[in-house]
């Protein structure tokens, strides 16, 4: 019997995390390059109790029908060579699903 768990988790496009920077001591409002970037997307991680990962589903937000949201041809080709599939789904805004076939 297979036991499967999945969880949707938020990802950051710029995963800089706790970025550090140099600035004058005691200065207010120091901007960290790309560090405060909150642009994100979601990933669905699924695994089985037997130790397998299920294909990944990744959803990038965007305007429905806009080709802009689809990762570029080179990236898609690399991913496709590994058996991943790209599709645009009409859930609220447009999404991109990356999944293994």
């Amino acid at each position, binding site marked *: *019997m*297979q*036991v*499967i*768990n*999945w*969880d*949707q*988790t938020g*990802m950051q*496009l*710029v*995963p*800089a*995390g706790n970025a550090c920077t140099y600035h004058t001591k005691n200065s207010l409002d120091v901007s960290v*390059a*790309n560090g405060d*970037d909150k*642009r994100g*997307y979601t*990933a*669905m*991680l*699924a*695994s*089985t*109790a*037997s*130790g*397998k*990962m*299920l*294909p*990944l*589903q*990744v959803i*990038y937000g965007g305007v429905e029908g806009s080709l*802009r*949201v689809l*990762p*570029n041809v*080179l*990236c*898609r080709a*690399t*991913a496709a060579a*590994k058996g*991943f599939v790209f599709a645009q*789904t009409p*859930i609220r805004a447009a999404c991109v*699903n*990356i*999944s293994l076939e």
Partner: protein
Amino acid sequence: MRKYIIGMIDSYVRSVVKASNGQLPVDQKAVLLIDCWSVHKNEEFLSWMKEEYPHLIILFVPGGTTSKFQPADTSLNRPFKATVKAAYHLWYAQDVGQQLQGHAVGEVKVGTAVGVMRDLSVGWLLSSWERLNGDASIVKKAW
């Protein structure tokens, strides 16, 4: 969510049954251990599941306990994200390193426009996923 069940979960369970070469029945039961997300708890979704996939048994991780009992939360999300982050830092460092050959420090500019990052993220996600999938012991430990 329905699309996810059809395209991902159901097709996975089917593939396991198929790979068993007749050892497992076509309606082999499987347990879906999921959290109390509103989308999962949705009445319409649950009755649809009962109707379409009676062999897929849904069990909920008790509300508020996902950090203890949900495998994804206990030990998969973190290494997954960490690998993505490491790949990002590697890319960033390489980009800066390349630009420093021929440019002054002040001229170095790393482009992180949405489109650029989205394209790059695909490769990072792929390698992170492969890392987890390639090591069953990490995944098993999560359970």
